[in-house]
């Protein structure tokens, strides 16, 4: 049957409720008798808690309960961590601090009251006596033997060491004509979804039924973790993720507040709501990146890469959140980027500091890898006086070499890197840009052109690589009226699964997308699941759903074959009907087949009634989208201010279900990646004080910071799943950051610059312009 909807730029099914203000986010949930929680947080980066006096708050009219660390620790487990690295120290923390605080914003006490204004007032009445301790925020200092220690029970702040070597790097470096090295720093970032976190919980005796509404990317994981944390039966626990206002990785984690709200609902016997304020969001929702990479690359004079050595330091913050220790290890997997790197040595140390924990933020470990390889390629090109495009081209594996085993230890599924590079260069008019650049330089103007050829790891992933499992579920039910209900464990937060899954199913069944409804985000309705992150929703969740659809199609073919007196292999799906192949006159309408399935009278012998199928899909491998981005910047020669004047992105994410949504994902990713290069940074001072605690200091990019992006794509289907899709949620973020930095460094080449650290604030560039005369 021809594809009628897959590949079509369809408007989203979820949008009417979102544009009209009728959708329900967590803060819109109101329950009778609901209480409001306010959390009191540490104002010190590192301190002992000498005394907490809650007496005034307890007596404040309207206050129902005030809780502190000891009480909660006696009833609830710690903030969960699902990732594990051999020999790592167990840096977990209780929901409320016990004895010590280790970062600004760490929860110390919680107040619940009948009104959020009252709860806030009461929070101010809690007096906490601190004994401030020296803090450590620089990970290299934190590794020194005389550094302040975060955990009294550990001998130092080194959380773990991790590493591997593939190939012989020592030999590679010995044979090299040229060795380039540089230190690349990925600054700390705040994921900052526009909807902050939020939780509402009710707890009902005598059935011990816990119902939680949470702004989460992973309702099923949250359910399991809450059941364990609060010691309630998982099969009496229900998590609902209503409309979720963005996640970017930060809503995968299970947070102290999730447990606290559940505990307080249980304790008070009333529904409890907590909605995160933006200041809390920047201080106490996980951060991303914060990694230092010392990179060395060994090359031949013609630009051929021989080997690479990476020493990485990951600043994990003060404790482990759900995946904290795992994220920086992903950098090692992707270190070679889209190049043949015959020998690779990767050594990572994870360090504890007095900051909020880091965890998965859009890209999670892969932007760090892409940034360092794409930067060092430019450093090498500069040294070898090669064009950045040519040194890249020289080292690409060719299309016929896929699947391609890398020295990072993964097998790239499929690619044609050169095609994407060529298309990007053509679209950007690369040669013309270089001519213009030469001309402008002669006039004392600084324009730079930056390239980034990236590959990334998507469709997370095989369970062997994923703490908690990497599968996903899809259930499909055809209702008696012929309407189709899809239940997916891949709970979205803006990705548009309601639309894309309907497109896939509509084509498979020969129905209209309007006949199909996709349900998600409710553990009581969706039998099982993992969630949406790591660009996995379509590739893994979509595939599970696709397999469930195939099961139903097979069953319907059996029914139709029985009634049309042929064999199931002779039946195919047409629009609205099932047809005997090559004999279009013999057919049964879709609804008639459904009717037979449910009335169960005319079923073929041995076939069960009903049309309902659930599949778990376990991917055999990740998928590896790729592409090339070209960024052009102009630098204000006096103030140093960089301005992006052109941005071209050619991405390949395999087959495309809905080009409109793919473009949207790319746009959003680009902005986040570019903002890392230019603006964003979570800053702590040396005492562990958070200096970017509001949106007055943490710079989320605005519309006017960008030109109109020029997008194109190549299509190389993935062999890993039947849909041939790869995933596109993180590609823009991963590809764009190095393109921007490469462009700025390129603009400043006349000043003999080989690197500038992000974010590329005007002042850093101004210092270079001031410090040296252009050659």
């Amino acid at each position, binding site marked *: 049957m021809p594809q009628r909807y897959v590949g079509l730029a369809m408007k989203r099914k979820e949008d009417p409720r979102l544009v009209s203000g009728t959708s329900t986010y967590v803060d819109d949930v109101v329950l009778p008798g609901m209480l409001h929680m306010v959390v009191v947080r540490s104002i010190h980066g590192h301190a002992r808690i000498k005394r907490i006096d809650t007496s005034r708050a307890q007596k404040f009219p309207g206050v129902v309960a005030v809780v502190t660390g000891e009480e909660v620790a006696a009833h609830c487990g710690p903030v969960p961590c699902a990732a594990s690295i051999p020999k790592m120290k167990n840096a977990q923390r209780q929901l409320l601090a016990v004895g010590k605080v280790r970062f600004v914003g760490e929860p110390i006490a919680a107040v619940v009251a009948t009104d959020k204004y009252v709860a*806030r007032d009461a929070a101010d009445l809690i007096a906490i006596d601190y004994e401030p301790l020296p803090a450590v925020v620089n990970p290299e200092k934190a590794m020194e033997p005389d550094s302040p220690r975060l955990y009294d029970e550990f001998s130092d702040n080194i959380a773990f060491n991790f590493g591997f070597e593939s190939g012989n790097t020592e030999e590679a470096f010995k044979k090299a004509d040229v060795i380039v090295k540089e230190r690349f720093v990925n600054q700390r970032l705040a994921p900052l979804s526009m909807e902050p976190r939020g939780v509402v919980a009710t707890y009902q005796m005598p059935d011990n039924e816990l119902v939680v509404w949470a702004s989460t990317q992973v309702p099923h994981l949250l359910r399991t973790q809450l059941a364990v944390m609060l010691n309630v039966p998982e099969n009496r626990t229900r998590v609902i993720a209503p409309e979720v206002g963005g996640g970017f990785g930060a809503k995968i984690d299970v947070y102290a507040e999730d447990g606290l709200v559940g505990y307080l609902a249980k304790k008070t016997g009333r529904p409890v709501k907590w909605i995160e304020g933006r200041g809390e969001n920047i201080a106490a929702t996980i951060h991303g990146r914060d990694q230092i990479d010392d990179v060395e690359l060994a090359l031949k004079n013609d630009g051929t890469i021989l080997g690479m050595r990476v020493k990485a330091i990951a600043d994990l913050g003060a404790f482990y959140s759900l995946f904290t220790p795992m994220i920086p290890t992903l950098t090692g997997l992707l270190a070679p980027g889209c190049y043949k790197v015959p020998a690779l040595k990767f050594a990572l140390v994870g360090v504890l500091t007095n900051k909020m924990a880091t965890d998965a933020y859009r890209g999670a470990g892969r932007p760090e890898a892409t940034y360092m390889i794409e930067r060092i390629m430019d450093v090498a090109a500069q040294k070898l006086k090669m064009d950045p495009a040519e040194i890249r081209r020289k080292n690409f594996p060719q299309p016929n070499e896929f699947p391609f085993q890398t020295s990072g230890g993964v097998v790239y599924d499929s690619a044609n890197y050169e095609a994407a590079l060529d298309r990007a260069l053509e679209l950007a008019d690369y040669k013309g840009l270089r001519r213009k650049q030469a001309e402008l330089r002669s006039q004392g103007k600084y324009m730079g052109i930056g390239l980034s050829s990236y590959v990334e790891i998507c469709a997370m992933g095989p369970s062997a690589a994923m703490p908690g499992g990497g599968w996903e579920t899809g259930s499909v039910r055809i209702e008696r009226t012929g309407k189709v209900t899809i239940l997916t464990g891949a709970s979205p937060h803006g990705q548009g699964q309601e639309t894309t899954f309907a497109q896939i199913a509509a084509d498979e069944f020969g129905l209209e997308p309007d006949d199909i409804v996709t349900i998600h985000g409710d553990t009581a309705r969706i039998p099982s699941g993992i969630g949406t992150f790591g660009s996995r929703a379509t590739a893994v969740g979509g595939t599970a759903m696709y397999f469930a659809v195939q099961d139903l199609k097979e069953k319907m073919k059996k029914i139709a074959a029985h009634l049309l007196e042929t064999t199931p292999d002779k039946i195919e799906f047409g629009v609205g009907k099932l047809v005997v192949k090559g004999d279009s006159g013999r057919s049964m309408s879709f609804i008639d087949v459904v009717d037979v399935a449910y009335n169960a009278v005319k079923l073929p012998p041995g076939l069960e009634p009903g049309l309902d199928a659930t599949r778990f899909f376990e991917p055999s491998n990740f998928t590896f989208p790729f592409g090339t981005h070209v960024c052009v910047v102009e630098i204000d020669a006096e*103030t140093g*201010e960089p301005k992006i004047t052109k941005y071209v992105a050619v991405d390949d994410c395999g087959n495309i279900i809905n080009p409109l949504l793919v473009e949207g994902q790319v746009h959003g990713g680009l902005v986040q990646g570019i903002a890392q290069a230019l603006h964003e940074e979570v800053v702590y001072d040396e005492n562990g004080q958070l200096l970017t605690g509001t949106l007055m200091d*943490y710079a989320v990019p605005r519309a006017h910071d960008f030109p109109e992006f020029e997008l194109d794509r190549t299509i190389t289907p993935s062999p890993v799943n039947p849909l041939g899709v790869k995933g596109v949620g993180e590609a823009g973020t991963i590809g764009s950051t190095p393109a921007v930095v490469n462009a700025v460094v390129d603009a400043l080449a006349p000043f003999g610059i080989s690197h500038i650290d992000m974010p590329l604030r005007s002042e850093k560039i101004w210092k270079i312009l001031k410090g040296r005369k252009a050659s």
Partner: protein
Amino acid sequence: MIAQNFEYTVATSLAEAVNLLQKHGGRAKILAGGHSLIPMMKLRLATPEALIDIGRIPELSYVRQDGDMVCIGALATHHVVETSGVVMRHCQALADGAGLIGDIQVRNKGTIGGSIAHADPAADYPASILAFDATIVTLGPKGERLIPASKFFVDMLTTALEANEIVREIQIPVQSGKTGSAYLKMAQKASGFAICGAAAVVELDGSGAMAKVAIGITGVGNRAFRATEAEKALKGQKPTTDLLKRACEKASSGVIALEDIHASADYRLDLARIFARRAVEAAIERA
């Protein structure tokens, strides 16, 4: 997100507001647009006992030309200032500045009186207010007072206003002859406040020489200031690229600059020189 409670009174006239201020003895704040005060109250960094809302006094939101003065009521919103024909005609730099404050929503609500009374060191208006030699008309228990701009901005968040005084009007002399003015800024990426903003007012004589030059700088020091040495070096001269550059090198001499994660003191001082020159160039262009 939630402010401490306070007593709230709507003042129907400025005189009433002054009386109420006196009654509260310094523990009350005036609420106009609220865009400087409310965010601070929500973070509980400002905890006034009472707010006196002057936002409903209708006759205070005006821009008009009164003889050789442009008179702007304290409650004129940034949007009103930004789009006022009178302002654009006679004091373009002020309109430039108003248009660069915050965003549409902030400009719809925030007022010129509220902004200058708050005297944020990185606010946009003060640069132009100083460069135009504006006069701030205030009302207090003893009646009206005219405060020259040069005396108004005292220090960080501190003005010459007495505790019981309220800004009533800003008066800007209509510029004579061939005069142009402009305001330019580098905005802090997150907040939009000025890392450095410069306003220039330049009058050219018949020969093309600068008969009058005034430069106001904001965002750099504890308070906005006039770049008097640069002005002196420019006054009476014909503008050449070289002269403008040399003269504006003095735009920040003697200033102790602020420093934060967004810009060092040195950078701010250099931006003052750069933006002073650019503002002068833009003002000449418009003269």
